[in-house]
């Protein structure tokens, strides 16, 4: 078993237009928004019911149809908000 992949040594820090990679992070408090569309669909006891109906749809079906738009909303807000607070910090 050969110990390593034949890769070119990669410099660990390079100064670039967007700041030193060493100072980068993907952490942001806004990322917590992503937890909503992950957790809500797992709680079956919330939506496993027939009423209230909406336009003839049982609750089970119409309520779950909301998860995808919520996921878009959470994902897009987390992206733009964390990018904005990142640029406020200088990069």
């Amino acid at each position, binding site marked *: 078993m050969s110990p390593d992949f034949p*890769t070119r040594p*990669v410099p660990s820090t390079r100064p670039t237009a967007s700041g030193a990679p060493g100072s980068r992070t*993907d952490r942001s408090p806004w990322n917590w928004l992503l937890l909503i569309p992950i957790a809500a669909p797992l709680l*079956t006891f919330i939506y*496993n019911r027939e009423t209230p109906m909406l*336009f003839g749809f*049982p609750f*089970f079906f119409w309520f779950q149809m909301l998860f*995808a738009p919520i*996921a878009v909303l959470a994902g897009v807000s987390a992206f733009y908000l964390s990018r904005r607070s990142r640029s406020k910090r200088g990069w």
Partner: protein
Amino acid sequence: MHVHATELWITIVLFLLVTGMGFAAARWRRPPTLHTMDEWGLAGRKFGSWIGWFMLGGDLYTAYTFVAVPALLFGTGALGFYAIPYTAIEYPLVVLILIRLWSVCRTHGYVTPADYVRGRFGSPTLALAIALTGVVATMPYIALNLIGIQATLQVIGLGGDWPLIVAFVVLAAFTWRSGLRAPALIAFVKDALVYLLIIVAIAYIPAKVGGWGHIFSVTNAHFKATPPHTGALLTGNNQLTYATLAFGSAAAIFLYPHAITGVLSTRSRDVVRRSVAWLPVYSIVLGLIALLGVVALAAKVKPLLSGGKANTNTIIPALFEGTFPHWFAGVAFATIIIGALVPSAVMSIAAANLFTRNIYKEYLRRDASDHEQATVSKFTSLAVKAGAILFILLLQPQFSINLQLIGGVIILQALPAVFVGLYTRWPHRAGLIAGWAAGMATGIWMLYVTPNPATKQSHWGGSAFALSHLGLHTGQGLYTGFIAVVINLVVTAVVTLAAKALKVPDGIDATAATDYFTDADDVAEVPAEAAVA
């Protein structure tokens, strides 16, 4: 057999249109040469957010999804709706993981997830395990897309195997020429057709059938009359199955090679994040498509027979044929067939890249040049497609469906090495190999002992593992893949602790902490691996 001529002609015209696009894609953002792994296999890693979004959407929502998800709802009721929470969870769950994977692959020029695992854990054996898992999980997936095409052709009235073979030969030809650019360009047409079709279908069909109120009362009555007599809701026993199926499938989807190939073809971290953030828009469409399953139930659609058995995969094409005017039914059939081409092309490219990078280059020709690798990848993608065709022609469709079920469980076994590895280098390579083996063995065993009383199968009967096997007689079941990956993680941790205590030598990590945050402007145009060649 009666052939529906209008439908057939419209399908042929639209198929020819995307075939032309597939060949022309070779000139799209034309590089000096297409004959490198990065250009043929990853379209130059230059896609922006729009292309990335269309391409990933076209790649992940396969033709099989479009026919099988409604068919599942048609057959099982509420449990079949799990695809909706699954596809809502998947993107928020993985988006942060994927940008790290993108960065480290960009820094080192990694083309496949197994390349990354090789570099991170310094173990060609582990990389081989990950590559084989990817190839084995992908093959039946391609075959199932063929089942989607086949079901549609059956409803159009084309018997025999030759139309399917023709469609796949054409697909093979433009993929050979244009690589990943072909499905990316065709994805625009596919996705536009899918959105058009579903808007029309939802506005038109339910009203014709008697309205949603009527549709759901028929559905409810139907599932009250069939065991377990609970109507169109989950039972006390399958709620945990539902939640673990949704969560496990969401964690698995971006471990599939074709999903990772799509992600690696994008230009920057922001592109990954932005296009993935908008992807659940497709899940809205999927939800509407899924509901067509209960519409078909209310419309009393009878599935066509194949091999003497009712083929529920035909209910959606049959619903379209029965309710749309002929010309629009043609558009709908073309959409399903084109819908199969995009993921099949990406899957065959992704599987070919795995073979080339992690088997051919690793074990057969260490010093293969980039040019040679691209050639091997092209030939392998042909072999993969030929293999998928043979699956369908020579074996029972049930075999591909069983394999796809296994595929979903085994692909999850790559999670500790690929996803966990992006956050911590703590696991020992021996631990990851042992965990992978344990997860594979228990996962496959659990699927094997699961019967399906409805279809009278005694094995491979479904993806819910009854906890009664473990002596817990609560009637509950959990998603098999979920249990297997938990076992995998536990074994990985235990063996890692043991290996560290015994001072077993670990692999060398070729990546640096900052590599996981690299962005487009940090790396030279030609990534390291390509430069070596």
